[in-house]
């Protein structure tokens, strides 16, 4: 019996026990004289029985799924076929793993003939323990259902019990975000620590040569200096993209909030928002297919040497376009938050609209705008597909926007999409880069949120 069928069966049995619990509870209401003594509605009795039937069984299955592989291996090793296995634990482990994946239909053919002989014992063991687990789970369903069904009586506080369980579910759900954060942090730290045991953190953070393909050997690794990647990331995400996004985004926000007729604003705002909704892979393709060749031709025509078809400028400009709506909506919000008395006062003094905007509104809204820009930067440096497709792979430390540079995210993708063994410093380096990226974007976000929050309080 496969897992999903068993799961479905348990859920169906749960539904049936819900029905029986409800039927019994209804009889309390209609039949018994002590109508006032019934504590909960019949529905809650139904849920009470259903949870008793399904909960323990599912819990058991979860534990069983974790525990049974070890039991299966023990059983397979006890079979006569296991006697010819090599004693070396590594060879033994790989044969067993292969036999296991063939037995569970994940793999078709064995590379090692010995694993083929182990398939049969594995198959018997797996089906034995699967059947055992299924029978035990079904017994638990019936036991739990019967136990709780027998306990149903008018005074039972079914609703309170159900509500307590629901409360636990709510709490658990909200914990997932925290668990995810911890998971991100732990996995990044754990893998980075393995990387830093092979490569010194100083070399990584301050080295200027990035060339992971030319790794020397164990303990003598060089070529992991990440400074060129950091520079490329900052150059594209924080410099070129912002040169495009800040003026365009800010001026768009100013026009939309201060000048535009309502009708125009109602149309333009969603149109700008579409820019943020276009998938980044589309932007990347657009940058690589259309923008980059045009920029290269332009650079060649004005005589710039070293113009590459994968340029920092192409990636940066397209990323800037993507960020425009982000900057403009943050600026929009913070300009709208400036009290209108300040604006009206300035206008009443005889200042023109543009003077009011430049001298009153923007200075007053500045913290919000700065916060928005910081968030935009954090988004730009974490952006992956545009730079993967348009920025190139050469780790250059150049300020020439027409040349190819590489970024942190590009390198993460590069390091992790080859066929590499998982313990090599090359793959682990990706996690170290990820850790740096995570910390930097986290700091930027925290600072930005603090700036925005502080400024909001000043006016309210």
């Amino acid at each position: 019996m496969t897992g999903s069928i068993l799961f479905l069966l348990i859920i169906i049995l749960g539904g049936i026990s819900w029905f029986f619990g409800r039927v019994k509870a209804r009889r309390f209401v209609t039949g018994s004289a002590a109508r006032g003594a019934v504590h909960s509605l019949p529905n809650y009795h139904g849920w009470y029985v259903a949870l008793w039937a399904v909960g323990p069984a599912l819990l058991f299955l979860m534990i069983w799924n974790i525990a049974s592989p070890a039991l299966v291996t023990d059983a397979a090793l006890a079979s006569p076929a296991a006697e010819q296995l090599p004693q070396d634990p590594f060879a033994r482990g790989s044969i067993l793993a292969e036999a296991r994946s063939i037995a569970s239909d994940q793999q078709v053919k064995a590379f090692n003939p010995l694993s083929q002989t182990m398939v049969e014992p594995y198959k018997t063991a797996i089906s034995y323990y699967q059947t055992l687990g299924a029978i035990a789970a079904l017994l638990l369903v019936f036991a739990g259902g019967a136990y709780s069904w027998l306990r149903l009586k008018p005074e039972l506080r079914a609703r309170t019990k159900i509500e307590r369980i629901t409360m636990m579910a709510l709490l658990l759900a909200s914990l997932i975000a925290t668990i995810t954060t911890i998971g991100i942090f732990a996995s990044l730290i754990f893998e980075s620590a393995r990387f830093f045991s092979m490569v010194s953190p100083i070399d990584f953070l301050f080295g200027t040569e990035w060339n992971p393909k030319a790794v020397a050997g164990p303990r003598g690794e060089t070529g992991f200096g990440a400074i060129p990647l950091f520079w490329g990331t900052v150059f594209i995400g924080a410099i070129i993209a912002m040169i495009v996004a800040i003026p365009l985004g800010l001026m768009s926000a100013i026009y939309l909030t201060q000048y535009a007729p309502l009708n125009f604003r109602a149309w333009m705002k969603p149109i700008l928002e579409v820019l943020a909704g276009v998938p980044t892979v589309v932007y990347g393709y657009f940058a690589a297919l259309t923008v980059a060749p045009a920029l290269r031709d332009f650079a060649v025509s004005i005589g710039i040497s070293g113009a590459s078809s994968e340029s920092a400028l192409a990636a940066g400009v397209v990323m800037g376009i993507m960020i425009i709506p982000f900057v403009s909506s943050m600026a929009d919000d913070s300009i709208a938050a400036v009290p209108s008395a300040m604006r009206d006062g300035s206008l009443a003094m005889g200042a023109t609209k543009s003077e009011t905007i430049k001298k009153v509104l923007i200075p007053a809204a500045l913290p919000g705008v700065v916060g928005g820009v910081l968030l935009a930067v954090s988004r730009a440096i974490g952006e992956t597909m545009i730079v993967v497709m348009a920025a190139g792979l050469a780790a250059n430390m150049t300020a020439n926007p027409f040349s190819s540079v590489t970024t942190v995210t590009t390198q993460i993708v590069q390091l992790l999409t080859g066929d590499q063994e998982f313990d090599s410093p090359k793959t682990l380096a990706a996690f170290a880069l990820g850790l740096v990226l995570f910390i930097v974007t986290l700091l930027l976000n925290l600072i930005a949120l603090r700036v925005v929050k502080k400024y909001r309080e000043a006016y309210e």
Partner: protein
Amino acid sequence: MNSAATFIDERNPTDWQSDQMQKRIRKRYAAERRFKALGLGAIILSASFLAFLLVVMVGNGLRGFTQTELPVAIDFPAMTGGASASQFEGTNAEANLRTLGVQDIVNTSIEIQYGELGGELFSAGGWQAVSAAILDNPDIIETETTLYLPVESEIDVAYKGSGSASAEQKITELKDQFSTGFNWNFLSNSDATDPMQVGIWGALKGSLITMFITLMIAFPIGVLSALYLEEYAPKNRFTDLIEVSINNLAAVPSIIFGLLGLAVFLNLFGLPRSAALVGGLTLALMTMPVIVISGRNAVKAVPPSIREAAFGIGASQMQVVFHHVLPLALPGILTGTIIGMARALGETAPLLMIGMRAFIATPPSGIVEPATVLPVQIFLWSDEVNRGFVEKTSAAIIVLLLFLLTMNALAIYLRNRFETRW
């Protein structure tokens, strides 16, 4: 005080009519106009970027939905030695077709009509169209028929736009015979090495399965935690931590979620690589904070009077939340969910991390089978050197954008439809 008074005394009233003053006013007004024009320019520039992007993609991509064809006359009775139509009806049709050797028949027919090198004109998989035509209408097997078959990719590109010199030459030679048909294969096939044979169905199906898993995980968790944080959570360190982590997760770069998926789901739990299950789990972790944040806003917008009225007639807190607050907040939560799902649908980077970049030629039929999704398929095709892939990539982008625009339009519609002023 004294000095200020004398200053005012000494100053003449402003003469607004003086040339100097008029000039200054003109200057200020000109600056005003310039500033306004600058703002309008910024908007128009931003919008024209979008328009340019869409025009380029649609211009390239529409051609991907068509294919160039050349007629091939096939003399079935002569080549099959008199196969009858009845052989290709019913249950044995496909087996009989296989023994017939359609590929050879087609190749011979092409050689008869276009000479020795005729085979180079046609797409290698074109004979499958003939097989499909026979199954569709077995009667043609008894007649001499002319079928239109897709040409080879280089010629296809050259016919639609401009291609290599040799292909252009062939175009001029056969000019009158070409015709253009809708490329149904593009909607029903999966990835392939020949751009004439590729299709998006595999990636689309992968996307749908992945999105389904994402929704099944992110939606309940998102809604439950939004309810907890708004309706139950006490104000303390612990709930602050939950709140901070949700806000931070919403701003974590997507590639970091890919690293998490790789380290936890693949390496720790040993789930299969490239599977829609892992992709869906990873995207769910990414989408959940979006749903929580929008859900909290929707729950917050439900007025307290509704809760108080329910409490007043004796409902327990759980009943208030699940019978009254949640139904009223649901449209708002749904809007946020659709927006979050749209973002997940367009996401590529985290899926590359968990190995969803393999060449996958058969659509996935389960959640643990190797699958690919539309954005990743676009990324893979964009790497192909063959020119035929350019239009296929753009065509796939059109499909992806259509999905996204539909989802966003739905979100806007829901927001307008259910927006309630209390």
